[in-house]
């Protein structure tokens, strides 16, 4: 396993794409969070919003570069033919996939920490100026607050799980363009669909089973009873998607020709 990890780490480190995509993920997360928090306002009708969740809105955008990175980690090897060399050098194919998953989780978690902390810092700086003040019952965002810490850690885990889900899908599909299509569809179609549906029961069902909508429940800190799914159970749904995708990818990698 160790040489496999070393090989995968070298690949990630020496290609320019992953670094740019990770920087893109950080930028997208912080930028959207800053943009959204800076247009919120506590009007006469009250704030009625969850400041932690608002500050972490950018994760929904930052997951796209993460997913693209995860797709490229394996499909890049298929398009360049490097997969043949890789598998010739490491005939134990599942180990290769495991090494890719571990390396990917590591780099995505590292970028995720920066992105999530940046987004929370943006919220902490911007929200008081938009009326979210301690006097109105909104103390400044702080990781010392239990639910906020859970939302922050959960968002980092969420990004890692999205990366693993995308890796699994790309291992099944192999072609980079097609895998990206499938992954982006999975991430964004269900949330859009649940808005087009009028029936609240259907909406909640879709929000419970969708990898994004369920997983992002981890960001909620207020009004947890009204969530379609509880925070950790939601992250569990995303983990289930990731596990299923990786399992399918691992199986197909073993039984298919390269």
């Amino acid at each position, binding site marked *: 396993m160790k040489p496999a990890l070393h090989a995968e780490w070298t690949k990630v480190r020496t290609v320019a794409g992953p670094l740019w995509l990770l920087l893109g993920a950080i930028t997208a997360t912080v930028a959207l969070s800053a*943009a*959204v928090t800076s*247009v*919120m*306002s506590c*009007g*006469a*009708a*009250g704030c009625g919003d969850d400041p932690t969740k608002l500050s972490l*809105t950018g994760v*929904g*955008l930052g997951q*796209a570069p993460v997913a*693209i990175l995860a*797709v*490229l980690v394996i*499909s*890049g090897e298929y*398009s360049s033919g490097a997969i043949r060399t890789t598998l010739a050098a490491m005939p134990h194919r599942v180990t290769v996939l495991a090494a890719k998953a571990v390396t990917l989780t590591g780099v995505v978690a590292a970028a995720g920490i920066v992105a999530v902390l940046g987004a929370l810092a943006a919220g902490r700086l911007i929200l008081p100026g938009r009326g979210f003040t301690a006097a109105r019952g909104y103390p400044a965002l702080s990781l010392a607050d239990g639910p906020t810490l859970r939302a922050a850690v959960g968002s980092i885990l969420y990004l890692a799980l999205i990366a693993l889900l995308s890796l699994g899908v790309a291992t099944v599909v192999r*072609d*980079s*363009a*097609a895998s*990206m*299509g499938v992954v*982006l*569809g999975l991430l*964004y*179609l269900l*949330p*859009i*669909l649940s*808005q*087009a*549906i*009028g*029936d609240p029961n*259907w*909406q909640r069902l879709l929000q419970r089973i969708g990898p994004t909508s369920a997983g992002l429940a981890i960001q909620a800190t207020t009004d947890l009873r009204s969530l379609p799914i509880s925070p950790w159970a939601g992250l569990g749904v995303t983990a289930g998607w990731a596990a299923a995708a990786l399992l399918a990818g691992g199986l197909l990698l073993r039984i298919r020709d390269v």
Partner: protein
Amino acid sequence: MTPTMTRYRSAQPAGRDGFPQLLRTEWTKFRTVRGWVLGMVAAAVMMVLVALLAGAGSDQHGLPAVPIGPGGEPVTDSFYFVHRPLGGNGSITVSVAALRGGISSDRAGLRPGIVPWAKAGIIIKESTRQGSPYAAIMVTGSHGVRMQDDYVNDRAGLPGAVSAASPRWLRLDRSGDAVTGYESADGTHWTMVGTVHVDGLGSTVQGGLFVASPPSVQGFGTVPSVATAVFGNLRVQGGWLGGHWKGGQVGPESRTFSGYPANAPGSFTDSGGSVTVTGAGDIAPAVRETLPTGGTIGDILTGTFAALIAVIVVGTQFVTAEYRDDMIYVTLAASPRRSRVLAAKAIVLGAVTFVAGLAGSVVAIPLGKRLAEANGVYLFPVTSSALLRAEVGTAALLATAAILALAVGAMLRRSAGAVTTVVVAIALPYILVAQIPFLPAGASSWLTRVTPAAAFAVQQTLVPYHQVTSISTPYNGYYPLAPWAGFAVLAGYAAVCLAVAAVLLRRRDA
């Protein structure tokens, strides 16, 4: 004797290198790659499946009926009405000396303030039934005197707010189906605002004073508001029946009326010469905020997003696969005029995607509509030309997006980079405007004006009305550009990218 030479002739017909042959070549490539054909089929199927889900996943049985105006459009027809029957012809005159209001607030209960389209004036209406035809002249919160009829028609009179120092005098004259509105600043010098023909008024109508105050748009939602007007010099002439004025709320329980603010009910008091009326609601066409449960063709076509991703992937691969498999050498050797190769690819891809997209939308819309209506969902009405435009426009949107993907693929020569670029350019702005309700109107307007996602305007079937304050964002189904202007933005991007790709393809080694 000279031997006769027979020149060799191949049994194959001579090959040709014309453009039709090139088109045939590209068509053969397209139809023989299973993944591409499946991608196009998947695009159409996703549109239909999502429409089915959107239609089946709603159940609105048991909700009160939506009031429908004389023109067939959904309307808000809820207001406080102080009325008497009028048999035959007659006129009514009144002066308005004050129009005040209150807007709901969670801390103060009701804070003073008047919404721009608060209305107080006189009205002649077929009956108190919601949606019945009418003509009215009124003062408004901040749009001056207006004369309106049958919900959608609006004409302006004197500008300026009303106060005790500058009252407004209003008069309506009914003669058959013709109603003429007059206004005056002093009660002696009158100007005609307009004459309207109200079809279906009938002989005996209800006429009198009315006050309405639509919900106040605050941020990304609305809160109830209320208005109070002080009327004086009430005079009627002609066939008015019944001895005294009756007050009451028209349409108190309605899909398009969100009610009064707490502890501020409608009322009227007649204190000899001066009549004070408090009311809420509106007499206007319904928009997305006032009828949030209403469905649109755009909702049914939500699957366009999935189809868009599918056609972007196929469009990119249609050229990048040639680079990946080194097929491009053969292609360019066989057809050395490289721009023509790109043109042939664009035509074949565009045509195939258009057909797939049209099949998807033509099947999806009626199915989604029928299912939604079977579930009691009210769908905003669509003219047949707008429906056709949404169907053809969606197909054209997908075809043009596929061509854009092809062009970017030819520029970058790698599928991963090309798919990412095109998705960021068109799908990402759409996700942002369609998914984030609190995206500021400025940002979402910019995103649907400048980026290729502007083309989603072809799916707009909601009609905007200037006389209703609403949140006109793409999230609510209102796009900043006209349908085909929005499409032209996408087409412009595709044309420019195709031109750049053609230049690069000619200049670069394959």
